[in-house]
């Protein structure tokens, strides 16, 4: 009976071309150090980290260079052994200048990573949460939410199921795919820490069926007595969104404005889980991450271990790009942000770098038409909103009405509506503008 209502997945959604073939079978390789690394102090929600190094100071790879400022903040670690050249402003992905530490790697050093105080598997939940914060862990899927801040169940509540998100529904990206194939033991170690921290009785690793090798590989190595199951889900975007994934795996729906904990679930990205398993036993912090570098404009597509703070121009020069490069975005093409310039550095949340040429340019192809009420966006929206109506209201700047009567705040900007819109209305952009206007109105 439940099968009729699409159990095993969520309802609505879209099927963009996957475009993962170019990189899915390429093992993770290492990208060299850039001559100058730019480590932003704000790679997470919450306040920027506070630097604990001075200009001119020598640091060792893996050494903490900034400490968290408050609960929603995390630590930063030196991505390379080198000299702190400056602490100043650097361009961020949103186009704003952000505080950052400029680090010049030493070419001759061994680049070994220092070890800190290890966190044992039998540590208390509070100790694990603290260790994760000190390891600088944020969601590696892209949202940048500090992982430690969501692990403890709310007062009076409980978490029964830990969901590890190996869906990777964004087209082009194969980061999580490769991590599942190459860092299986780290994932299981990370899982043990997360189960202990959350008090969850079991864990489910959700994998889309376009990664059968990853699911099989995880199943083969499944440790005994670890309450983990691997569930294969049909391919659909945006299945990696936590509300969609919880519905697909558990059949529970997080209420509007609610957190996964309200249905006793918690989602952690699979690469984040692997990172926790890799770092905590050695007391280390994040100094690099796996990034899929791909897209029609990239010559040597692949999955790379990229030091945090590597500027885009160095990264693209290293892999080689076509001359008619016209767009670069960080993250996948559905939710990623377009880079305003190539000085922007790779951060902890950058799961992919996708570069398009002028041939894939949208501005030349796209003419915006009025909304014809075709209803495609309603059938695409995983949150069951009416993007068509929201778009019309946004065009008239009726922002309050959008929030009060049409659940604007339930929109998590997956882009499914704008993807299907035959009139090419920039719906998501309109919703972002509306949300920003509402935040501004509330603040003043």
């Amino acid at each position, binding site marked *: 009976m439940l099968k009729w209502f699409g159990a095993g997945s969520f309802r609505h959604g879209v099927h963009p071309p996957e475009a993962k073939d170019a990189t899915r079978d390429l093992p993770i390789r290492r990208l060299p150090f850039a001559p100058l690394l730019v480590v932003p102090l704000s790679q997470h929600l919450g306040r920027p980290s506070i630097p604990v190094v001075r200009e001119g100071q020598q640091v060792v790879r893996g050494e903490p260079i900034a400490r968290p400022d408050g609960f929603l903040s995390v630590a930063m670690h030196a991505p390379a052994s080198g000299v702190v050249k400056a602490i100043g402003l650097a361009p961020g992905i949103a186009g704003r200048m952000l505080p950052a530490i400029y680090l010049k790697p030493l070419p001759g050093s061994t680049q070994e990573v220092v070890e800190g105080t290890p966190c044992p598997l039998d540590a208390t939940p509070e100790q694990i949460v603290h260790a994760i914060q000190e390891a600088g862990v944020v969601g590696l899927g892209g949202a940048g939410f500090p992982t430690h801040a969501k692990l403890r169940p709310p007062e009076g509540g409980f978490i029964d199921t830990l969901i590890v998100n190996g869906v990777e529904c964004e*087209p082009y990206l194969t980061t999580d795919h490769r991590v599942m194939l190459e860092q299986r033991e780290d994932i299981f170690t990370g899982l043990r820490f997360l189960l202990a921290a959350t008090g969850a009785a079991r864990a489910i690793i959700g994998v889309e069926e376009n990664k059968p090798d990853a699911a099989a590989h995880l199943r083969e190595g499944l440790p005994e007595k670890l309450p983990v199951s691997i569930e294969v889900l049909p391919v659909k975007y945006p299945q990696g969104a936590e509300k969609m994934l919880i519905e697909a795996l558990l059949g529970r*729906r*997080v209420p509007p404005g609610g957190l996964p904990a309200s249905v006793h679930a918690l989602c952690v990205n699979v690469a984040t889980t692997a990172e926790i398993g890799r770092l905590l036993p050695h007391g280390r912090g994040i100094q690099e991450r796996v990034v899929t570098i791909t897209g029609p404009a990239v010559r040597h597509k692949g999955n790379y271990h990229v030091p945090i703070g590597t*500027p885009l121009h160095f990264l693209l020069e290293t892999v080689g790009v076509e001359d008619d490069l016209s767009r*670069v975005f960080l993250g996948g093409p559905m939710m990623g942000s377009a880079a305003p310039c*190539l000085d922007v550095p790779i951060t902890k949340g950058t799961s992919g770098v996708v570069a398009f040429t002028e041939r894939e340019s949208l501005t030349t192809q796209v003419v915006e038409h009025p909304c014809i*009420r075709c209803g495609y966006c309603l059938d695409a929206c995983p949150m069951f909103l009416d993007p068509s109506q929201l778009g019309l209201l946004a065009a008239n700047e009726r922002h309050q009405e959008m929030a009060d009567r049409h659940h604007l705040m*339930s929109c998590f900007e997956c882009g499914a509506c704008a*993807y299907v819109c035959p009139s090419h209305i920039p719906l998501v952009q309109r919703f972002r503008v509306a949300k920003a206007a509402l935040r501004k109105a509330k603040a003043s």
Partner: protein
Amino acid sequence: MVGPTRILEIRTSPHLLSGHRVETIMFNVVLALLPTTAWAIWCFGLKALLVLVTALASCLLTERAACAFSDRPSSLGDGSVAITGLLYGLTLPPGLPLWMVAVGGVIGVAMGKALFGGLGANPFNPALVARAFLQAAFPVAMTSWLPPFGPDRFGSLPASTLAPPFSRAVVDGWSGATPLAASKFGGELSALADLATGAVAGSLGETSGLLILLGGAWLVARHMMNWRIPVGIFTVVAGASALLHFVAPESHAPPGFMLFSGGLMLGAVFMATDMVGSPVTGAGCLLYGALIGALVVVIRAWGGMPEGVMYAILLANAVSPHIDRWIRPRVFGQVAAEGDG
């Protein structure tokens, strides 16, 4: 070399598009109308061709003029006005004087569409606005029918076709009654096979129900038409007329006749489904279809006219925005919230 000064194109996400385009949807609707159009020309000959060409030309020219008048770029390219022109032409009697066809087209596009702000802003189907205007302005010419398959239909024209504007020659040489009029006023029923294939008198496009259904199936298969609207209409019309026919067989036609006669097929499949004038939710579309079906039966059974599809759709167009206000998709997780509380 990748220099930091390279100029990048900045757009906000999503950076991919599905390839759906307004133009493609409109083109497919025109394509779906072609069999019906070709059959209409075959049935009625040269006069039908001239009516269609005149209808198309008047609609296209009016749209272009309206764009020029309001300083907007030409919207002919989106293809919506081509559908309006074609549909409008298909709703007309084959021998209608061409000057009337032109006047209706101008009124329909100017008053029914451009005045409201063009594509997407028109509450009513412009083709039906045009027809409604003609029905009110020239009731006699709009209810004078010619039988199909007339002799020499490709070689000669009825006098009415080329009649000069406002002349009295219009009524000469007309004959034939539509099956609906024959049923309503004369108590005769046409054979269902004739109705389905179009071998009866009527407007250009309301003759062959089967070809219309074929076009509709094509659009449904391509996700360019909401099937719930025609299904809603057909269900209510068939159900209500079956009931009426059962109670009083002598005064009410059977369901098969009701479905395939008059403009019901063309209206249900191609006019009621106009995306702009119909609701956006699935349940809304069913309700909207049911409303049209109910209005059609009421007008046909107890109204003063033999046919009511046009007014039924126009009235439902007016209700459609309200349906969208009443029936809204329930936001994700809302049920769970109420259940928990």
